[in-house]
């Protein structure tokens, strides 16, 4: 199966989790997602997701002036974002556990 299809549903959670570690700007977040193994993540999907999370009030943004280039817009997770991430954790664990069982054929054994 095309991993990009799988990614779509969980990109919100992935972006929030990356920002929980440290604030970041768009391309920096793309790089950090790829660094942990989500290599198929599309640049445009990440930028779009950041926009939507920001609009939805899960992120705050601030501009950092740079000496060697354009000013950058950094995103930071806020309380609402943390709550969203906290709620997603157990849901993801349950979903991933169920998929694991299904794919390894252990449904009856459990």
């Amino acid at each position, binding site marked *: 199966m095309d991993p990009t299809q799988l990614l*779509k549903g969980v*990109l919100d959670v992935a972006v929030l989790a990356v920002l929980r570690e440290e604030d970041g*700007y*768009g*391309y920096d977040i793309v790089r950090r997602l790829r660094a942990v193994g989500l290599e198929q993540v*599309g*640049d*445009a*999907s*990440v*930028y*779009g*997701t950041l*926009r*939507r999370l920001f*609009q939805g009030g899960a992120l705050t943004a601030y501009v950092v002036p740079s000496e060697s*280039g*354009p000013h*950058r*817009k950094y995103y930071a997770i806020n309380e609402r974002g943390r709550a969203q991430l906290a709620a997603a954790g157990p849901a993801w664990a349950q979903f991933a556990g169920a998929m694991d069982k299904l794919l390894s054929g252990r449904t009856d054994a459990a």
Partner: protein
Amino acid sequence: MTTLVDPEIDGYHAAVRAALADLPDAARAELLEDLADHLREVRAESEGRSLTDVLGAPGDYAAELRAAAGYPAGAARRGRAPLDPLARFRQRSLAIDEAVGQAFGVARATDALRALGPGWWVLRGWIVALVLVGAHRHAHWTGLVPRVDGRPSAWGWLLGLAGVAGSLAAGVWSRRRSAGTRVVIGLVSVAITVLGVFVTRNLFGADVVRYGGPALAPVAAAPSSAAATPSP
């Protein structure tokens, strides 16, 4: 060097913007906010691959962006695209640029042309000097070194070198200007070259005739008739 205007980035940006044309202004501005910065970073890391190679076609990029941001799929994807003519022209010329460039083993043809720029500037300066002496009524066209009053002299070389220096300065200066300014300078250069070919060729013809006949008067007349020839 990242401060230079990059036609590939401009073209890609314009095409993404065009594909988002149906969105309200505020929504589009928001989606495009980081795009130029993003494209510059991708380009800096692309190792010679084009933006389309790395990111996909601008239309697909725009579709992914709007879908992830939660906006409905655009009218531009459904049928008659309201792509403005300028964006379409840019997209098309970018495709040609890449196709020609890849035939020669580089990402884009304009990259190769840009690398040849300084050589062209030297040649252009020398041609300008030749045109200057060629336009002089008593000039003799006797070679590729500009001659003042028909005699080989240090002045001719000096004139040539001054032309080259001026041309190099103009070239370096123009690289820091907008694409529009560069186009104007390019057109002026081509016009000078064409003029130079006309003037020198006609002078050369007059020279050959002069060797056959002793008259001084036709020599003086030749440049003025030469000047009249190119104008329609």
